[in-house]
């Protein structure tokens, strides 16, 4: 099986988030948003609506509206029109950075996760006031939490009303965002999560795996929405029963042993995870009861733990080794006084290095048969699944 990966975009600054939908690619470079066509990568326009770093970007599949959240405590909605995009600012009433924003499937409201007060924000457009409104949902008073929601939050794909989010203290909370004007009550009929769902009701509260390790991302299992897949900061992937609050299966990435940032389903049971190892991995759920590693997408540098176990074999693979200190000194002197570039680095950089991340993956997106990842190294890389 050949591993196919291709460098799509290479930028100077870290890409913290991006989104692809309806042949539009939106990505951020610190506080600036760039909008490209996809897959041609023609720059359509750019915006600088925020005065601090953009933390997340999401394009709604239905309406094509783009949402950006930022460390400057605001969100901006970019609505497509004939001449491009019109922007509208969403005032969130949060006093700290907004870490994450996500449209619901219908595209008429979105959730935001903030570092402030451990509360979830739900925003929707109010026609009467002609203004975006942000409402807060707080977990119960007794919940001990670090106060900060992580980038992990997910809409229940079955009803588009329930939201599950995690925080940096490992709390997993499911709440209802039912709004009379927007939502259909019938969607929640026979829901395994209960019967009545007024806005802001806390449906479930758990600490998965009882270890309070920060929850990096959550995804509902499309085949069975009583279950979620959680990526935690201890490097674990958990198949979690969100109704009963039990861990069904837990798995670790034995090759790299590093935590995952993102979980995304590509089919009813198969999902992709990516994170600090810089390599996306494909997993599947077998019989709804266990997680199984399928394959690694793309290539990676060898993890340094391998060096520890047999340091004789691959001591000079990862980085250039010098026979003596004098030789290294000479190289730096050449670089410093004569402006001479080190000659071996380009020779060592292979095609694989070019087409793989050297820093953590920050965001992933699945577009038909392709997976696209963005990294802190400023790269966007395309993989065939």
């Amino acid at each position, binding site marked *: 099986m050949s591993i196919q990966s291709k460098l799509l975009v290479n930028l100077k600054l870290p890409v913290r988030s991006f989104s692809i939908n309806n042949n539009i690619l939106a990505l951020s470079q610190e506080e600036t948003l760039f909008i490209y066509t996809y897959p041609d990568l023609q720059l359509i326009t750019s915006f600088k609506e925020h005065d601090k770093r953009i933390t997340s970007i999401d394009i709604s599949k239905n309406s094509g509206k783009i949402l950006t959240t930022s460390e400057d405590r605001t969100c901006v909605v970019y609505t497509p029109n004939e001449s491009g995009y019109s922007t509208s600012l969403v005032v969130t009433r949060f006093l700290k950075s907004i870490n994450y924003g996500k449209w619901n499937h219908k595209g008429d409201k979105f959730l935001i996760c903030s570092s402030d007060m451990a509360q979830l924000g739900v925003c929707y457009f109010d026609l009467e006031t002609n203004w975006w409104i942000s409402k807060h949902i707080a977990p119960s008073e007794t919940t*001990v939490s670090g106060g900060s929601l992580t980038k992990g939050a997910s809409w229940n794909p079955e009803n588009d009303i329930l939201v599950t989010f995690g925080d940096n203290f490992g709390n997993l909370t499911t709440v209802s965002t039912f709004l009379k004007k927007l939502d259909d009550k019938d969607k929640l009929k026979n829901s395994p999560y209960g019967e009545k769902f007024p806005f802001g009701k806390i449906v479930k509260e758990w*600490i998965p795996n*009882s270890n*309070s*390790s920060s929850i990096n991302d959550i995804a509902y299992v499309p085949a069975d929405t009583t279950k979620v897949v959680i990526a*935690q900061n*201890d490097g674990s992937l958990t198949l979690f029963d969100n109704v009963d609050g039990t861990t069904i299966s837990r798995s670790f990435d034995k090759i790299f*042993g*590093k*935590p995952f940032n993102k979980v995304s389903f590509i089919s009813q049971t198969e999902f992709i995870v990516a994170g600090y190892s810089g390599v996306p991995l494909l997993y599947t759920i077998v019989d709804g009861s266990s997680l199984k590693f399928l394959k690694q997408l793309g290539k990676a540098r060898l993890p340094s733990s391998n060096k520890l176990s047999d340091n004789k074999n691959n001591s000079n693979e990862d980085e250039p080794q010098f026979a003596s200190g004098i030789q290294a000194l000479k190289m730096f002197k050449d670089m410093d006084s004569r402006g001479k570039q080190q000659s071996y680095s380009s020779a060592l950089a292979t095609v694989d290095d070019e087409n793989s991340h050297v820093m953590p993956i920050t965001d992933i997106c699945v577009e038909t048969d392709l997976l696209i990842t963005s990294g802190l190294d400023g790269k966007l890389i395309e993989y065939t699944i």
Partner: protein
Amino acid sequence: MEDWRKIDIDALDASTRNKRLTSETILANFINKGIIHKYSSQELSNLIGEISARINKNDYSSSILEIVVKYPVYAAEDSSLKLHYVQLINNCLVNTKDIDPVLKQLSDDEIDVLLKYCYKIMSLTELQATGQYIVNWVYKIISLHGQGVVLRYITDRKTI
């Protein structure tokens, strides 16, 4: 203002939800939720007695396999008794000559617990005289299980 770095911005925050968490709050939360069992002095004395009896018989590895990793003492009523317990574990670890067979019998979760004790022992100045043995344990654990165990140690809030 010179020491602006020392301003506690959390104290200026009006919201009660942004309070800084202390390790006491975290521990109390775990105990309230029933995730961590708080050992009474009686229970801990029983564990200590059991390990001491085995040490008297020159049997070190069995208490690691059967007691230490099975009953992690995260919280105890009497902290001096807990320290005594950690010292006994140090004694067991230092005197176990053959490490590999012990490690091979432990499950992944049990390895995590053992590593927590290793780091705890390394943090105590009075136990540093025999530190090289503990370092050897940690080295062997990482060789066998990769760096993931260290990551789990760092991120787990249930601490010894």
